[in-house]
């Protein structure tokens, strides 16, 4: 009875084409934002920030980025880990090279640098399609990780080969480094995520997004109706890499604090983000969030259940987790190839009619 579009009259085109056309959706969205900005920062503690909230926010950015490329533009990429590494190392060089720069600018510039690298590795996509492209993006993954491992300039010649985030502030409050309060980490990531998600949502429903989707659905047909594959594919690579670069920068600077490239940004990271958008739903904003939340929460839950609850050894729990994630991927693809986002859509559809069957 609560979730209805009846009586919600649109009197202008702007209102008709808004992101949340149903009033209950709009209210829920603003309520969620209010809770995220006004309630959570006051009650969050270190455990929740580090185990759940911050990784969720960061992976959500990465998932949106990959979803733009794979879900909206149809170019499968297995190079996410490599591009996150570019963001992280660019951010590190900016942080250490220009200590006075505000952290937000560092993060955005790191994203911009990653966008450039993304375009470079996106160039072959004009010739190579489908699986071939997926494997070709592996070249980016392995080459970039190797590069950051082997060229000492990138990690400022540190003896361990690691990069460590120095303390940087926004408005006088530390957002990176060891002295960062939990709420500052959380809020910093949240602001960036909300801004980027807003940007992505509006890009995907505008002309750029429609071009991406035309290329995804059938590239030759899209070309015939006047969509330029060069600019369309490369813009998808650039914007997707920007998002992924920002998430990589945050992942290193805010979440990890110190990172070793092979460990933090290996091939498994690429797959993790890919799984997020498969489970969440390809080509859906909600799906990016749902998938990120699901795969961030799943290990935490399983660990609490198997190790904490049943007292199993950690390595066994880790292997069971692999099996469960793999099994879930297959189950999702079989039962609902459009992921959690589709379940959400179906649920909303049912809710609109409830309590009547038709």
């Amino acid at each position, binding site marked *: 009875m609560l979730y209805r579009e009846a009586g919600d009259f649109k009197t202008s085109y702007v209102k008709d084409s808004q992101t949340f056309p149903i009033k209950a959706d709009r209210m829920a969205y603003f309520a969620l934002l209010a809770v995220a900005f006004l309630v959570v920062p006051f009650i969050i503690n270190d455990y929740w920030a580090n185990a759940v909230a911050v990784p969720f926010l960061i992976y959500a950015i990465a998932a949106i980025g990959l979803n733009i490329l794979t879900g909206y533009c149809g170019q499968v990429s297995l190079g996410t880990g490599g591009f996150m590494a570019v963001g992280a190392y660019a951010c590190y060089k900016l942080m250490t090279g220009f200590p006075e720069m505000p952290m937000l600018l560092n993060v955005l510039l790191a994203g911009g640098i990653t966008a450039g690298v993304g375009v470079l590795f996106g160039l072959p996509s004009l*010739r190579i399609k489908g*699986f071939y492209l997926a*494997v*070709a993006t592996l070249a980016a993954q392995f080459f970039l990780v190797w590069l950051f491992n082997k*060229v000492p300039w990138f990690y400022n010649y540190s003896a361990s080969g690691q990069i460590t985030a120095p303390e940087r502030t926004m408005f006088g409050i530390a957002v990176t480094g060891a002295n960062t309060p939990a709420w500052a980490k959380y809020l910093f990531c949240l602001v960036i995520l909300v801004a980027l998600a807003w940007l992505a949502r509006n890009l995907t429903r505008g002309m750029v997004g429609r071009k991406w989707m035309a290329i995804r659905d059938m590239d030759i047909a899209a070309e015939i109706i006047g969509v330029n594959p060069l600019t369309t594919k490369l813009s998808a690579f650039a914007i997707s890499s920007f998002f992924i670069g920002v998430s990589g920068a945050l992942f290193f600077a805010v979440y990890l604090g110190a990172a070793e490239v092979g460990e933090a940004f290996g091939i498994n990271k690429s797959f993790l983000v890919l799984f997020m958008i498969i489970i969440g739903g390809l080509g859906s904003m909600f799906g990016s969030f749902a998938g990120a939340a699901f795969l961030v929460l799943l290990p935490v839950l399983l660990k609490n259940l198997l190790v904490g609850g*049943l*007292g199993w050894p950690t*390595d066994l729990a880790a292997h069971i987790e692999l*099996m469960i994630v*793999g099994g879930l991927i297959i189950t999702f693809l079989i039962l609902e190839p459009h992921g959690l986002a589709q379940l959400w859509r179906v649920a909303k559809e049912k809710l609109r009619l409830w309590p009547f069957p038709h």
Partner: protein
Amino acid sequence: MPDTLLYAIEVSLNGLMAGIMYALVALGFVLIFKASGIFNYAQGVLALFAALTLVGLQNGQIPFAHLINAVFGTSLHGFGWTLPAVVAIALTALVMVGLAWAIERLVLKHLVNQEPIILFMATIGLAYFLEGLGDVMWGADIKKLDVGLPQGINEAIDNATFNWFGYGFFIDNLDIVAACVAAALVLSLTLFSQYTKYGRALRAVADDHQAALSVGISLRFIWVLVWSIAGFVALVAGIMWGSKSGVQFSLSLIALKALPVLMLGGFTSIPGAIVGGLIIGMGEKLFEFFAGPMIGGATENWFAYVLALLFLVFRPQGLFGERIIERV
């Protein structure tokens, strides 16, 4: 002859041998891709799983011992026997057939007519699942695999080349065995697909699913068959790689190298898999030999992928692949 040239020859010979190892994994990919159009990412993990099962059976490990111990508080470890290699290999082959049947039953059957990219992602899920399953069944520690294959430097080649050039080439016996096995495998696969009833059915399915169905070929049987063969090829690859560098998780990463091999050779060509393997193997060893010291070494991690990438820009279907024709 100058020393550098001799070294280069030795390096490229070793590269060729390594390439054969890659080709062994790539073969399994090609088989499945040809027969079902599925790009089977799990091939590498199949090899890992086969090798783990082989070691486990050989040493008489109890499957799921770790899990059972954790659940029931027992301390099981092994049955206390060791199986001869031949028996263990035969049993593992059976396990792989069972696995192929289960995969068809539980996964592929439900995904018929889905887009190729969905099937590809399903095999990524399968890879994760099998990796977890292998670890839970047999434990994740690095295991030594020994099925009685000869190992170490080949004395004959060493002596012969020493007499000719005054410098003995180091070629591993195991690599030579692998080369022979790969040759035998390709030969028998070719004979199988040319001269047997099921081989013909296999080729028919590869050619056109619907036409094959209409003349009464059971697609599902063919899929089980082809996944069993791929499982068997994975077993062979697992034995070779396992004997060479121990059975461990990195096996499935090495198998990832089969992907550039495939791209180079074309997804649909068995000779392509072999030639691609040789090019990649030799290319990456030579590149490491000449350029590696200048730019920091360990170039083997990425060279194969970048080579394949550059190559594809000029020939998107690979060396031997069928031409890609696109229509609206």
